């Protein structure tokens, strides 16, 4: 039973993928603290390692064109096991949203509003996001083009403004870190920014995609998103050099260093607001997906009336996640990749294999 009848065009789907990946370029501090000046290499490795996973997602999308993830799980694993996996995924979506809301709260507190308690910032953001979620997928992804184009222009402007402070020799020495760091870096980048594309398995039913379109939109979205992460990372490395792992938010510090005379300096408030809007887009997509998953689990189509309750749960859950931002960064670096790997790679792979097997069986019977 289709929970949300909203239909979006292929372009909106692609641009929301781009926005989704771009918004995680804001919080690359966990990556740069692991692999200092080779982070840009890690992004390329991560992208290459992630391409097979995108194939898995695409196959699942084409195998079940009008079923979202929860329905797929029910159909492939049967009612009991399907429900268990469904609950795992709902917990995954909820904690992803809460993590991002927590990041937003910390980021805003660090950049703009130093004394305001981050709870108020979170509540305001979730409140506005609930407006989008109440009106379904159409509204959530409607402004994806607008956001991604604005942020791309912002990136280009900030690179131009920082041109005089970019020192290319900050990229040296290349590949001088122990191999273990590179493995950790790649694993980190494939799970945190890229792995979250799994949520689009919940959104694909409202985009009528054939095989060619699915490939085009998925790969173009993923490609452009990775390119923009690469640009942000190279800018941070080039400007900060060896100070990269000292700052909690390298992107913010790079923006603070723009100083072209009296007027064109101290402008990071301007830039950080636009980055916050991008993070808002990611939060509203994740928030929508969690509400969709919950209402799909109870297969009720009263999606609108669950949004505020889910919002309250997300904010409260976000407050209980980690006692302090330092702990949050610490565990995000070391443990979370392992926690997300099964959810983002192993279970979808298993689902695909079982799904193909079931489909072939059905074809034989019919």
């Amino acid at each position, binding site marked *: 039973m289709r929970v949300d009848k909203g239909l979006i065009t292929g372009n909106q789907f692609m641009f929301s993928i781009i926005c989704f990946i771009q918004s995680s370029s804001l919080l690359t501090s966990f990556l740069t603290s692991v692999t200092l000046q080779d982070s840009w290499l890690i992004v390329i490795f991560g992208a290459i390692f992630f391409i097979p996973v995108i194939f898995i997602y695409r196959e699942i999308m084409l195998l079940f064109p009008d079923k979202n993830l929860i329905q797929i799980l029910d159909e492939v694993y049967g009612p009991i096991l399907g429900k268990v996996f469904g609950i795992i995924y709902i917990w995954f979506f909820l904690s992803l949203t809460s993590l991002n809301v927590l990041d937003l709260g910390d980021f805003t507190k*660090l950049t703009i*509003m*130093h*004394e*305001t*308690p981050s709870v*108020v910032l979170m*509540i*305001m953001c979730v*409140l506005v996001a609930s407006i989008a979620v109440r009106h379904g997928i159409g509204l959530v992804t409607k402004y994806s083009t607008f956001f991604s184009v604005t942020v791309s222009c912002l990136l280009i402007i900030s690179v131009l403004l920082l041109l*005089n402070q970019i020192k290319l*020799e900050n990229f*040296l*020495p290349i590949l*001088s870190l122990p191999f273990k760091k590179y493995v950790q870096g790649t694993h980190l980048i494939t799970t945190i920014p890229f792995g979250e594309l799994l949520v689009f398995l919940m959104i694909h039913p409202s985009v009528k995609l054939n095989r060619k379109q699915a490939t085009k939109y998925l790969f173009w979205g993923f490609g452009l998103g990775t390119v923009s992460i690469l640009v942000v990372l190279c800018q941070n490395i080039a400007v*900060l*050099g*060896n*100070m990269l792992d*000292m700052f909690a938010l390298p992107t913010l*510090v790079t923006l*603070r*260093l723009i*100083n072209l005379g009296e007027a064109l*300096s*101290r402008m990071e408030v301007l830039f950080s607001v636009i980055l916050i809007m991008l993070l808002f887009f990611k939060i509203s997509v994740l928030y929508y997906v969690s509400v969709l998953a919950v209402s799909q689990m109870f297969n009720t189509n009263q999606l609108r009336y669950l949004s505020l309750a889910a919002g309250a749960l997300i904010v409260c859950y976000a407050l209980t996640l980690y006692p302090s931002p330092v702990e949050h960064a610490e565990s995000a670096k070391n443990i979370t990749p392992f926690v997300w790997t099964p959810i983002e790679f192993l279970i979808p792979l298993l689902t695909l294999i079982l799904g193909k097997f079931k489909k072939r069986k059905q074809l034989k019977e019919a």
Partner: protein
Amino acid sequence: MSMRLFKKTAALGILISILAGFSGCWDSKEIDTIQIVTGVGLDKAENDEYVDISIQIAKTSPSAPGTKDSNGNGDSKIILESSKQTILEGVAELNLNNSRSPIFHHNQVLLISADLAKEGITEYLDAFMRDREARLEVLVVIVDGEAKEMLQADFEQEKVSGIFLRRTIRLLSNVTPEYSVRMIDLASRLRDESISPVATLVRLEDNDDKKNLLVEGMAVFDSEGKMIGNIDADEMRGYVWAMGKVEQGRVAVECEYGRAAFQIISMDCKRNVKLNEKGQVNVSFDVDATLNIGELRGFENLTPSELISHLIEETEGEIEDTIKGTFQSMQDLGADIYGVGLDLKRHHPKQWDKLKDRWEDYFSEAELELDVNVRIPGTGQIKKSLEMEDGENES
């Protein structure tokens, strides 16, 4: 549908009003309740765990904007002082007994007195890096004397000496970015043991009542942040030329024919560092500079072609001596301000690990190969100076 929309918006409105009412505005600081800090000075207090903090605040005089203070006392700045162990306590104390809270966003410059710098500045920088309000592009300046005095000094161009300092140093940095040492540059050099930090050194000189500022050179620090010496104005030029990226400046040459002064159009220095077979560090600078003849005195009986070739030799010699001189004095101090170690680390990380712990000694025995080539394209507006012979001129 419309009825639900009305109830929803009304409810959301109430929610927001509850939120707003109950919360109040944390961050809101009305503009007339703040003081704009334009300069911070750190001095050595009597007993040595304390540090004197003095803050320069631009007084927004209630007189109508635009009219200069006629009475000439020109005290458009207030100096607040306090003396505490840590900077935060000092600022908190300043905050207490005064009607407005200082904001550090517009702080232009951080002055540290030389004798405080001798004991080490790393721990003082930490407070400025961590505070969200402080900017990272604040200039760090070492004052040969009292920092507080510098803040109180009153210069003609700019009433507020913080801004005056920033503008003078900004002018200097047109010559080369090396002159203006920002907080982040100093911190990155402090943190990286392969390069030793430098900071601009300034002295306040007051002839009769007029005070003016003399940029004396650079203060050199070791990796723990203690000031171990300084280089004067001439040696500073040697350092700056060796770092490359020079866009302005002048070179004066004295020789038997007369005196000549040149303007530097551009000067670039390529550096590479390698270990020669004896395990000794070999540093090679090759500098190529384009100079314009600014002024010629003497050189009577020389044809322009001879003049040009002669001047090229002279300038190459002059540049070589200055760079060698500075390099030698740095080797005596054992402070690698050129970043020779940094280049080694970047290009040959493995060899750098071997030399890392005793880098000062390796640096002080390093031998320098220098090759300078100068090009003099133009001679300004006049082709020949007045006394020169008229000969065929192919410049």
